[in-house]
């Protein structure tokens, strides 16, 4: 956990696949390897999920392995909890971020606490897949970024891939984990394509952030749907003479203090970027902990570029809410460059 992980994407001979396809492949491989893996959700059978992430799995593994449940999220997660108590390894799909809220009590009062409650006798090897975030033109309740609720709940791993390779690798790790994982899938990256090497060494483990782009002027700290935004901002920044590094957190819990702090200590400046609302959002924790650990290396306060503190906007207005490269660069420009 100490050395910063700068692992470049393995070169792959394969054709590019979308993130949704990589996730589908991860589910399929996990189901093929371990008969204890059962998928539960709404419309995940014949339909293959509204994002087609479970496409073909009911046909391949049968309806007992990939089950269209009654329409009740607390019931789904509660039943999955009981299945995990029996020894299965359930993977639950919530159809959209906001539709995970009915299951909040089961997640917070049971899934996250069962292992601790029983001193390890009842672990919860359970994955909750939640498509999250905006930018897809969704109407109300279809674009929430709810990761701060899950981060604030002890006992949950909170994971979110930003690349196709991580989508596959982190989902495999999530399903293999003996602890519950909230697996947040950035909706607007579902169709982003990339190659990845199924036979390669795999992606770094949970708890490891990856420096997607080294940089010496300042560090952008981000994850999930905002990684492409930060990479774009870093590209554009070059014109202004800034060499911006970009860290992809990959897992919000556990948090990789070592990698993040090593970078920030080097650059002395950092901006956290995410879609979720700012107030009490993920960036609050990130900024606070980085500042605690790197205070005397900082030339400027850690800034945050986030969604505004408002309910997620209607689709025709969402672009004003979502952090874009311009907003990132505007924050970078406020990093007190005169103080160098």
């Amino acid at each position, binding site marked *: 956990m100490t050395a910063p992980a700068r692992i470049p994407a393995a070169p792959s001979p394969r054709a590019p696949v979308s993130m949704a396809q990589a996730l589908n492949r991860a589910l399929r491989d996990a189901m093929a390897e371990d008969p204890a893996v059962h998928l539960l959700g*709404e*419309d995940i*059978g*014949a*339909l*293959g999920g*509204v994002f087609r992430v479970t496409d073909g799995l009911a046909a391949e593994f049968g309806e007992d392995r990939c089950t*269209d*449940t*009654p*329409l*009740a*999220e*607390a*019931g789904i997660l509660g039943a999955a909890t009981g299945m995990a108590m029996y020894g299965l390894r359930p993977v639950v799909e919530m159809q959209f971020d*906001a*539709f995970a*809220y*009915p299951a909040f009590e089961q997640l917070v009062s049971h899934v996250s606490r069962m292992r601790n409650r029983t001193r390890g006798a009842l672990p919860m090897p359970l994955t909750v897949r939640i498509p999250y975030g905006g930018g897809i*033109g*969704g*109407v*109300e*309740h*279809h674009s929430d970024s709810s990761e701060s609720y899950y981060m604030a709940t002890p006992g949950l791993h909170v994971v979110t891939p930003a690349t196709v390779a991580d989508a596959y690798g982190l989902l495999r790790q999530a399903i293999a984990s003996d602890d519950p994982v909230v697996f947040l899938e950035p909706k607007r990256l579902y169709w982003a394509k990339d190659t990845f090497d199924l036979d390669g060494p795999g992606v770094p483990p949970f708890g490891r952030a990856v420096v997607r782009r080294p940089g010496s002027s300042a560090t952008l700290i981000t994850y999930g749907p905002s990684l492409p935004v930060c990479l774009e901002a870093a590209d554009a920044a070059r014109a202004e003479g800034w060499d911006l590094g970009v860290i992809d957190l990959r897992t919000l819990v556990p948090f990789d203090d070592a990698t993040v702090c090593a970078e920030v200590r080097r650059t002395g400046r950092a901006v956290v970027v995410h879609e979720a609302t700012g*107030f009490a959002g993920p960036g609050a924790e990130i900024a606070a902990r980085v500042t605690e650990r790197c205070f005397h290396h900082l030339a400027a306060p850690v800034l945050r570029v986030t969604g*505004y*503190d*408002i*309910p997620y*906007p*209607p*689709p*025709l*207005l969402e672009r*004003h*809410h979502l952090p874009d490269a*311009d*907003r990132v660069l*505007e924050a970078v420009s406020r990093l007190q460059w005169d103080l160098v």
Partner: protein
Amino acid sequence: MTVSELPAHATAAREAAPPLPDQEPYRLLGTRAPDPELWPRLHRELVRGRRYNTQATALTRQGRLAVYPSSAGQEACQVAAGLALGPRDWLFPSYRDTLAAVVRGLDPAAALTLLRGDWHTGYDPHTHRVAPLCTPLATQLPHAVGLAHAARLRRDDLAVLALVGDGGTSEGDFHEALNFAAVWRAPVVFLVQNNGYAISVPLAKQTAAPSIAHKAVGYGMPGRLVDGNDAPAVHDALTGALARARAGGGPTLIEALTYRLDAHTNADDATRYRTDAEVAAWRARDPLTLMERELRAHGLLADEDAAAAHEAAERTAAALREALSGDPELTPGDLFSHVFATPTPQLDEQRAHLDRAARQRELS
């Protein structure tokens, strides 16, 4: 010792049980002489409703609506719901029920605002007493109960009609709402449009109950099964239940058997989960066809009546096309105006930030 001889508590709630729902759906078409006023009116609204559905779906293809969950095939329920309500009653629709709101009098373009995407609700709910379209399933039902209960507390003799789908009946909120309604004898009617599917999931995977109407039994309220493609029957069942509610008789659960002829929304691929044969069988029971056939059989629909109905429908469609033809006016600053009665200092700062960013963008 019988139950009535048991000490107090156990018998407290044990009033006479309401009758069990009929196993056969309630029908009027073909069983009763037409109402010469109402039935032709229902027909005209069905024709207009169908046209509204096809027009809205067409608007998705032109990028004028972000998404449209069509109620084609379910117009009998939608029209009956819109017409059965008294002017002081309230309607609590789901995302699929814009047509009911339009029949009630709402401007179609305003009803579609959520689905166009310029705001979450395009009308003042008080104007036509139509609650906002509700996206999270069944969550509008406790709202309907609360409003009905508040009215009853204030001796305000309105009734409330809450709409939900067959899938939505599995949610905990359905249970809690019906239970509260029955305990409070709230003046509310729950209409379940059972169209057989929750997106792709068929009813058999949703419930093992003899019928959805049977769910009423567990709350101690009457349950009724109606043919949801028989507009007069749905209208009659709703009118009766609403009158009963207004008179203090408490809530009713009505299950209407119907079918969605279109896909779940324009974004859905219904061929993945249902057969052409099934759709064809239901198309043969199209609520418009049933209604039209019946009216014609009774000499209540002349060719010129049909033509007039279609013309009126075309006028609605044209008005809708027209209303949605331009780009909506958007004021990004509005995003901050309604979060609280008075924006916090932080929201004011953020609004200023957005304004600066917008100006910047215009400059560059």
